[in-house]
């Protein structure tokens, strides 16, 4: 057993989980800020971004060191590659949370408008996707990741519905165009977060099964049993 290498993998995993926690928290705060029109929460999201960026750099550095110094193979190689990609996706999740917060800060300046779109429901679905994609990483379970992929279609439909409804609202009620545009952009940001959660789930499947399921390409049969004892 390569003890030092195993410690490095454990450290990488722990750091990615902390990073996942920060990204998930940023999305939840942004979604809550939308519901409550809460500027304080928006500021918390903006202030948290630097922490996420810092975590991204540290994770990449550790992954780079492990690749260079330990020459990992097979499941370990797949794990480290997956971590670097998940790391990048989590950082982008943080960016989307910031975009949402900035959009809410703009909305709060405007008179409140009753818009025919359920952003809170979409936000809940997206938050669940992020949470479950991270759970699939923690558990090393490809089935959990597979479930996240299936949720992406639901969020895509919500985004499409929001677009149709909000464009119609802008036509029918020009006085709420800015509010509707903000809501439309938030729906788009949320859909992007869902895409990142999907990417994370795909990377977990790659790590666990060694199968590339991106872009709806049918996966090859699993190489062997699920990962249970790796980092």
């Amino acid at each position: 057993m390569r003890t030092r290498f195993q410690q490095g993998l454990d450290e990488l995993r722990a750091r990615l989980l902390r990073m996942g926690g920060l990204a998930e928290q940023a999305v939840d705060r942004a979604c809550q800020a939308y519901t409550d029109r809460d500027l304080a929460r928006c500021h918390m999201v903006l202030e948290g971004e630097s922490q996420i960026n810092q975590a991204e750099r540290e994770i990449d550095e550790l992954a780079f060191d492990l690749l260079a110094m330990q020459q990992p193979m097979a499941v370990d190689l797949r794990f480290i590659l997956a971590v670097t990609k998940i790391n990048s996706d989590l950082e982008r999740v943080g960016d989307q949370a910031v975009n949402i917060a900035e959009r809410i800060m703009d909305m709060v300046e405007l008179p409140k408008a009753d818009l025919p779109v359920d952003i809170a429901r979409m936000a809940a679905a997206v938050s669940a996707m992020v949470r479950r994609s991270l759970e699939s990483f923690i558990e090393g379970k490809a089935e959990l990741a597979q479930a996240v992929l299936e949720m992406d279609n639901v969020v895509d439909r919500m985004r499409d519905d929001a677009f149709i409804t909000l464009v119609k609202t802008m036509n029918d009620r020009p006085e709420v165009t800015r509010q509707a545009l903000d809501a439309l952009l938030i729906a788009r940001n949320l859909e992007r977060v869902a895409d990142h959660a999907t990417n994370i789930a795909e990377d977990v499947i790659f790590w666990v099964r060694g199968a590339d399921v991106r872009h709806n390409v049918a996966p090859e049969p699993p190489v062997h049993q699920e990962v249970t004892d790796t980092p």
Partner: protein
Amino acid sequence: MGVGIKVDKLNAWFGKTQALHDISIEVPANHATAVIGPSGCGKSTFVRCLNRMHETVPEARATGRVRMGDLDIYNGTSAVQIRRQIGMVFQKPNPFPTMSIYDNVAAGLRLNGFSDRKRLNEIVERSLKLSALWEEVKDTLKKKSGASLSGGQQQRLCIARALAVEPQVLLMDEPCSALDPISTGKIEELIFQLKEKFTIVIVTHNMQQASRVAEFTGFFLLGKLIEFDKTEKIFTTPSDKRTEDYITGRFG
């Protein structure tokens, strides 16, 4: 050109101890195939069975079928004939210390009664060029002994010696384990080039080396062939958990 090797239910023993169990494998022609596994797993015994060197050990024996092209290695073919067609390079470079560089390369041919001096010169030059040593030794071919060369040069000299008899297969048993990284790099580059003309089987403990030089890799454990596949598959998504545990350093 190299030829493929087909091994069918090969078993090998040292006295009463069975070292190989029912090994069946097809080594493709003009490719490098790596044999990996922990110490004592039977990988060296396996390659030594391919050119019948295994039987040179007292009380050692082997059963099963090994075919190299049209040649049945264990049936109706002499060991000498086999070894002329299957060259071997060992872990430690072993040039003949009292012979010049030239004589080292020519030794195998002379042993087979080859005496055409002009042709011999051509073969020595071609073999040293194939082993990427020619430029370094061409001016001292008959002046310097093989033992005066560096470790990496000695190993390339041994490769030239093996190539001089024009084998179809080259077996390499940990050919770089005694060499520094620069010499190792040269040998690996050489293996890459030699594949065009020969079939190569290389035993190595260095998994990075296997992944760099071989298109196919077989993993041995306790005398059994656990997995044989394309090298990229073995080192990224092996099918057997034991292979994965070995190459990720979880045992062995």
